[in-house]
């Protein structure tokens, strides 16, 4: 849950990048890390296997700057995508203020996206969170791949985005769509916070 420190005038929110294995969650954080000035970011921590697959989570603290006099900080987390790491996914998801669902646009990963989305809903529900009440943004990654290998953003929307929430095309490796997604989810989370429903 977001923390608002009215004394120090600080807001801290937790964003979780969710999605199937190898969809580009860590790549999103790495791109953000590489582009944000050093003073605005902390160390990026990656708890990964020897083959660089996320084992527990990646973590990147960001300071977005001042909004209405509040220093706004975001904690970006990724979860491990492989299905057998569900226990750790649940732990990382605890207390999330918003979720970015990073879907792999390749047609052959269609079922993996659906399974991961279902898993997100199940895990949120097990924590008493209704996914319909949580700020969520979809990112359709790998849109740079040849057209015959991928689904279009419209097809991805039809398959995954039942609630018609924000969605973004992306090529996270080269940065396209990465900041747009972050901006989108940040806006949703902060607007929800401003509405007074999440202030701790």
């Amino acid at each position, binding site marked *: *849950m977001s*923390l*608002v*420190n*009215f*004394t*120090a005038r600080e807001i*801290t929110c*937790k964003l979780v990048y969710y999605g199937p294995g190898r969809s580009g969650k860590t790549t999103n954080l790495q791109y953000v890390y590489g582009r944000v000035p050093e003073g605005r*970011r*902390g*160390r990026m*921590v990656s*708890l990964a296997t020897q083959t660089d697959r996320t084992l*527990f*989570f990646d*973590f990147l*603290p*960001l*300071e*977005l*700057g*001042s*909004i*209405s*006099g*509040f220093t*706004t*900080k975001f*904690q970006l*987390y990724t979860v491990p995508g492989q299905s057998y790491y569900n*226990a*750790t996914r649940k*732990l*990382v998801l*605890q*207390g*999330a203020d918003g979720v970015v669902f990073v879907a792999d646009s390749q047609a052959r990963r269609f079922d993996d996206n659906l399974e991961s989305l279902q898993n997100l809903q199940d895990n949120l529900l097990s924590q008493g969170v209704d996914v319909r009440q949580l700020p969520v943004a979809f990112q359709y990654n790998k849109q740079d791949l040849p057209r015959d290998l991928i689904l279009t953003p419209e097809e991805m929307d039809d398959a995954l985005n039942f609630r018609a929430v924000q969605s973004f095309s992306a090529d996270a490796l080269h940065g396209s769509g990465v*900041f*747009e997604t*972050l*901006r989108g989810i*940040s*806006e949703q989370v*902060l*607007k929800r*916070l*401003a*509405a*007074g429903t999440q*202030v*701790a």
Partner: protein
Amino acid sequence: MRALEPWVEAPLQAFLAESAARLTLLMTSSGQVVAQHGFGRSLDVMTAAALGAGIVASTEELARLMGAPKFEALVHHGGHQSCLLAAFATPRGRWIGLVVFGQETSVGIVQLFFDQLVQQLTDSAPREQAPAPRLAENFEHELDASLRALFGR
């Protein structure tokens, strides 16, 4: 020392004085920082909190899988610095303490006064949850302009 809520300050100050801890971090179970002492950069505090909360969450899950009671505390004994990590219940929910200490004190002393800290936090927590203050009405109005400036688009 920085604390999110003023009632945390006195118990934490007493703990720091008695335990001679170098760094102390109090956080919620999801890794949000509630109070801290000794960290230089606020962004590093968030990283330490995220890792600490992750360790506690995973050891608690491990205990649950083994059918064991929750671990009370986890101590990592290093050469020059050691670290104590412990979760505890407060009237404000489950919190986690992360304490880094050196050879000028001992794990026994840190644990002893950490237990006192937990007791004092429980005693001094306001019984009634303070009404959550609202952000200024112009917060949302300024949000668009701020995001544009921050993201440069």
